[in-house]
């Protein structure tokens, strides 16, 4: 038990633990201290000098760095604190070009809130960064240096991700944050920089403008929108709803309200990914292929592997990610159903992710490379979609709940938990377990390929489909959890990793044969997709946990918890694929190659 310490804030006593900072104590007790560069996920920067408090001797200190000690007496908001804080805030505003009108964070911005709280209408200083550059990383992220206040958060999180793509160069007012020229480093587009930036200087590359144009001038196109599992438990935050509030029904309504013709669910796509990945896992195990098999539905992780650890490319599953599969099916299976040419179908994915903007441009994810038909045409982040709804004055909170459209709108519990770290793993294992039992009972995979939903005669109870897998954190390897599970009658050693910093640890251990796993799930973002680069800000471990818990609650409440029982999935296998393995391979699988450096380019 950590030692308890008593401190005084504004003459009132508070309890603290050794190692806490004054800011920690204030936050735990609901006391307001503004802090711009501070983020609970990251090391303290201590550069904005806004979180000031006054000591007994009149000295001002930053509360984010001031560790508690017995008898410490602090005053908040003294005249000295207010004077220094106001000046520092004005100085910050003058180092940040105000482009609120075109910024996605408009009205949802920490800097704007500070101006309101401290009644600063305008800074007494002129803005100084109008000559700064806009730089694009690959095809998914861009930084506007004129808005950057050089707090260093993006650099710190990129370091945690073991990419080190961003660095501070120069000194004094010439200091800039920019991508490195070190050609051994590249961006993986995970967008953690985006969700840790306090001033909206870094954004995902916007896709909302062409989407909005399409929504307004249909041009005889069929406009399909599809939402990732994570969106239904996160987008509410953009409209001041509770963390983890489930808004699936309102999302279906919102997609139609803004002009899309069909509202589909990527959780359905996730069930297809599960079905195919389970088949692949079994094939992998039976034929002793490159162990461990790694999931590949996370494009940030895939980019990390392809660029930094290409020797592990052969370990990545070939199964496409959920939205790629549902995009593909929308332009093949569904195109047939509504009798439209795939060239007239436009698919927009709404994702918690910025790396998906890069994923859809990979050649292997084109439906037809020659005819230039992509499986998915646009990716809007959660934030972008909320921004679009606000632009169209759609009051999300007041929307009625509707159902997703049929064909690609029904999902199992397994499909919904994809957004949480460990979810892909669990889903795949639920189905792999079933597939192995089918194989054992019938001697073949035929019924699986034909989508027959074969009813097992013996050993019907599946432990893995009815209970959570109990993972244990690997000792000495924080951020990596593992477990031993039984599927069919086989024992598998599995691991779940989130954050590419942790992925690096496990890869290095595998290279040195210091550990053994059969199957590993890797998500580039903390907590999985619900902590993704496209998600609402702010983010922290508590918020991510609430989002993830909500997904698992959906799983609990759904009767169908397995991908292989999803009637829409079975329908496609039975009536569209009809056991044609080559067709399945062509539509739902892709290979990967070593990645060339995407680097960066100046766009202004």
């Amino acid at each position: 038990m950590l030692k308890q310490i008593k401190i005084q804030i504004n003459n009132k006593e508070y309890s603290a633990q050794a190692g806490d900072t004054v800011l920690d104590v204030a936050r735990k007790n609901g006391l307001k201290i503004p802090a711009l560069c501070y983020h609970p996920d990251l090391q303290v920067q201590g550069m904005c000098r806004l979180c000031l408090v006054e000591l007994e001797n009149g000295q001002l200190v930053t509360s984010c760095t001031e560790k508690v000690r017995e008898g410490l007496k602090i005053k908040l908001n003294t005249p000295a604190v207010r004077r220094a804080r106001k000046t520092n805030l004005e100085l910050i505003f003058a180092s940040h070009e105000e482009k609120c009108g075109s910024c996605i964070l408009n009205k949802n911005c920490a800097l704007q809130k500070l101006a309101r709280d401290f009644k600063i209408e305008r800074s007494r200083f002129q803005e100084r960064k109008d000559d700064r550059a806009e730089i694009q990383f690959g095809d998914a992220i861009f930084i506007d240096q004129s808005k950057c206040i050089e707090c260093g958060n993006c650099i710190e999180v990129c370091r945690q991700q073991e990419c080190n793509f961003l660095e501070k160069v120069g000194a004094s007012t010439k200091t800039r944050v920019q991508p490195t020229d070190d050609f051994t480093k590249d961006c993986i587009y995970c967008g953690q920089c985006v969700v840790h930036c306090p001033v909206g200087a870094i954004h995902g590359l916007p896709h909302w403008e062409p989407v909005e144009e399409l929504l307004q001038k249909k041009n005889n196109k069929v406009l399909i929108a599809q939402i990732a599992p994570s969106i239904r438990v996160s987008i509410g935050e953009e409209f001041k709803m509770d963390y983890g509030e489930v808004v699936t029904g309102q999302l279906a309504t919102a997609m139609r309200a803004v002009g899309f013709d069909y509202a589909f669910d990527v959780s359905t796509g996730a069930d297809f990914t599960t079905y195919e990945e389970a088949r692949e896992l079994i094939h992998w195990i039976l034929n002793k292929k490159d162990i461990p098999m790694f999931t590949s539905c996370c494009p940030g992780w895939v980019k990390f592997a392809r660029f930094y650890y290409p020797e592990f490319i052969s370990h990545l599953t070939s199964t496409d990610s959920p939205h790629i599969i549902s995009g593909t099916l929308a332009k093949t299976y569904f195109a047939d159903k509504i009798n439209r040419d795939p060239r007239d179908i436009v698919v927009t994915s709404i994702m918690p992710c910025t790396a998906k903007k890069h994923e859809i441009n990979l050649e292997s994810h084109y439906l037809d490379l020659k005819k230039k038909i992509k499986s998915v045409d646009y990716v809007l982040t959660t934030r972008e979609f909320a921004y679009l709804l606000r632009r169209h004055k759609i009051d999300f909170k007041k929307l009625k709940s509707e159902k997703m459209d049929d064909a690609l709108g029904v999902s199992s519990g397994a499909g919904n938990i994809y957004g949480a770290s460990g979810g892909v793993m669990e889903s795949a294992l639920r189905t792999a377990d079933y597939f192995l039992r089918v194989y054992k009972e019938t001697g073949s995979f035929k019924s699986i390929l034909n989508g027959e939903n074969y009813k097992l005669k013996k050993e019907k109870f599946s432990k893995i489909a009815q209970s959570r897998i109990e993972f244990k954190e690997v000792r000495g390897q924080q951020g990596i959890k593992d477990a031993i599970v039984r599927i069919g009658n086989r024992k598998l050693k599995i691991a779940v990793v989130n954050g590419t910093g942790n992925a690096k640890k496990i890869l290095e251990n595998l290279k040195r044969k210091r550990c053994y796993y059969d199957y590993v799930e890797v998500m580039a973002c903390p907590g999985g997709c619900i902590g993704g680069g496209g998600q609402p800000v702010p983010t922290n471990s508590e918020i991510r946990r609430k989002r993830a818990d909500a997904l698992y609650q959906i799983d609990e409440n759904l009767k169908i918890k397995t991908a292989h029982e999803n009637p829409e999935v079975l329908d496609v296998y039975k009536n569209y694929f009809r056991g044609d393995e080559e067709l399945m391979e062509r539509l739902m699988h892709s290979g990967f190659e070593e990645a060339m450096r995407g680097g960066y380019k100046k766009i202004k």
Partner: protein
Amino acid sequence: MVRLPEIIKKIEKAGLIGRGCCNFPTAKKWQMVYEQPGEKYIVCNVSEGELAVFKDEWILRNHPEIAIEGIKIALKTFKAKKAIIYLQKRYFKKYQDRLNRLIGRVKIELFAEQSGYIGGEETTLLNALEGKRSEPRQKPPYPPESGFLDQPTLVNNLETFYDIALINRDEYKQKRLVCISGEVRRTGVWELLEKMTIKEILEKTSNYPNFHFFVQVGGGASGKCLNETQLNTPICALGSIVIYKLKVPERALFAHWINFFQKESCGKCVPCREGTYRLKEIIESGGDLEGDLFKDILFSLDSSSFCGLGKAVSIPIRSYWKNIKYAKVDLERSIF
């Protein structure tokens, strides 16, 4: 209670104060490092980035072997892994060969500074040695507890090591190096008794002006301004005296100081990076040097800068106002 080595007791008896800008009692710092467990490092700070300070170069030119002797004493006392001499770029280029010859096979390395003034701040120096950006670290922890590679580290100025060698030889005579520059006949470095007053120093070095003047002591950027009536005191700061003509225009004076700080700011924290830039703007645009805007920035620098550089910016300005511009005595009354 750890038994202290003889040399630390001798340093304490000599009452040696660090010859960098912080005036920390040297024996106390040595004791702090000595009492820490773990592998230790020695750092000799020759950044000498302060304006009007060139005493460390005097040592490099005239008595480098004595300074190196002091570093060797530290290496032995702390059983340190190695020592690093951190030199400003020009000194590294000019003196590296000579120093390397004197060092021979002893575990002393030379390191060339890449930044400037801020590199003399000890935690910034340590970051530079570790290949990181030249920005200061949060203190505490202080280098004796956690310095180079998070190990206990002794950081002392070059002249401090020079004095330690003299103390060890029993040749220390309570003298220190003083740099004199500005409106003087004889710019240079003198080795003088610590207790000499500023007036005595100027007289002894034939530098006492025959015109009305004021001085800045402790550095030509961050030093304090004193008027003619305030010179009956020892320097009590970094060994530097700058002479200015009394009539020097305030705006030009402030521009001289602020331009230096603005250029040398590392760029980490808001009050210093942005504040010095805006002070420069106000000075250059003819703005009110005693207005609310100017004073608010100085206040923020004083009270909320991340490190000592930001906190030093207002020293020359405030002391100029207090002791020169609004001096309680008539500074133009002729005393000749």
